């Protein structure tokens, strides 16, 4: 099973085009509008970050590949607005002049600085101690959501069923696999796990290069080999 956005390690992509010093922050005016509309509608609190990531991942693969970055954002936003029952799709072509019950949550210009500088930390306190310790060997499971078939998950496919080592314990964080699907935060311990390039790739540039991936506790099991 493959998912179009999970492209780490994929073959066939061409050269990277580094930026030129003349590049603007937003190449087109509509890029800036797309970013701003997306951030502003977050204040309506009808979805969370994991849901909006998932909405982008749910674009048809053909669209995901063809759409530019901000086109993915606004297309996913349109889908979210409809899926969450905020507005109807008919309103996109035929807007209705009528105050929405959620309009009291509308982000105001005076609140922008505060909202952006506050962010939304995902660290949480949990009672259970971390299951893994720094230096411990672990093995990842399949990169699939266990609650919802085809659902959101943050384990990249290139790092599934692979052996790695715990590098950092980050404490507990909101679990995206649950949070993206209205199943609550279900916080779990989060770790940075290092993988040797030779564990992940058939022909690595250097077998001793490492990949560090942030991995939730339930994506892994302990490994007892020496």
């Amino acid at each position, binding site marked *: 099973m493959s998912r179009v956005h999970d492209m*780490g390690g*994929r073959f066939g992509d061409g050269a990277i085009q580094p930026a030129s010093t003349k590049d603007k922050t937003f190449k087109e005016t*509509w890029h800036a509008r*797309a970013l701003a509309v997306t951030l502003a*509608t977050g204040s309506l609190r009808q979805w969370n970050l994991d849901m909006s990531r998932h909405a982008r991942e749910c674009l048809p693969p053909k669209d995901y590949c063809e759409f530019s970055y901000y086109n993915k954002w606004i297309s996913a936003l349109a*889908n979210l*607005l409809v899926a969450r029952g905020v507005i109807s799709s008919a309103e*996109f072509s035929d807007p209705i002049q009528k105050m929405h019950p959620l309009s009291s949550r509308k982000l105001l210009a005076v609140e922008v600085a505060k909202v952006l500088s506050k962010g939304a930390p995902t660290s949480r306190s949990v009672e259970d101690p971390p299951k893994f310790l720094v230096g411990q060997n672990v093995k990842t499971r399949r990169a699939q959501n266990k609650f919802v078939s085809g659902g959101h998950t943050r384990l990249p496919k290139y790092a599934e069923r692979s052996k790695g080592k715990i590098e950092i314990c980050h404490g507990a964080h909101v679990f995206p696999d649950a949070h993206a699907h209205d199943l609550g935060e279900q916080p779990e311990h989060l770790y940075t796990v290092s993988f040797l390039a030779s564990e992940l790739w058939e022909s690595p*540039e250097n077998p001793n290069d490492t990949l560090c991936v942030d991995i939730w506790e339930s994506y892994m099991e302990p490994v007892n080999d020496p």
Partner: protein
Amino acid sequence: MPHDVEKHSHSLLPSDPELKVKALETALIKRGLIDPAALDEIIDTYQNKIGPKNGAKIIAKALLDKEFKKALISDPMQILEKHGFLGRQGEHIKVVENTPEVHNIVVCTLCSCYPWPLLGIPPTWYKSDEYRSRVVREPRKCLSDFGVTLPKDTKVRVWDSTAEIRYLVLPILPDKYKDFDKEQLSEIISRDAMIGTALIGEAS
């Protein structure tokens, strides 16, 4: 939300993305769900107030002050809070230091996660399929697209930002810049150097 979100609600939107945003904006403004002045404020923030200069300021200080560097690596949040460099997409920051043995590179293969309060909005290449797909598998080939060649014995460590931890690279300060002060240094620490796709004082 069910995973099978209605996939084609945007088919009622114009296919031209510029018109698509406009249609979305109009529909939302009419329902009182977004405030055009707030949109302008968001754009102004990321266009003019938040950018790689924030990160460069911190990194320049760390390159000159060993104690500060130690603190930045062990407990960055306290320092960043003091400088007012916290916020959206920078709620949990980790600084990773380049050494002659290890060169760090940051990516987000699953979307385009990036430390906004320190580097601003990510450049197009960072969000590109080419970078997201290739850098985890062939980091040196990717670096060569940026004109960067590492010493033969240097190992590469790629950080894939799969959670909400955002990574910032602390590059090596080349000897020829050892006499630079903080202001001069912050001028030559590029955004790409703090992502790991450039070295200090080199192009891009």
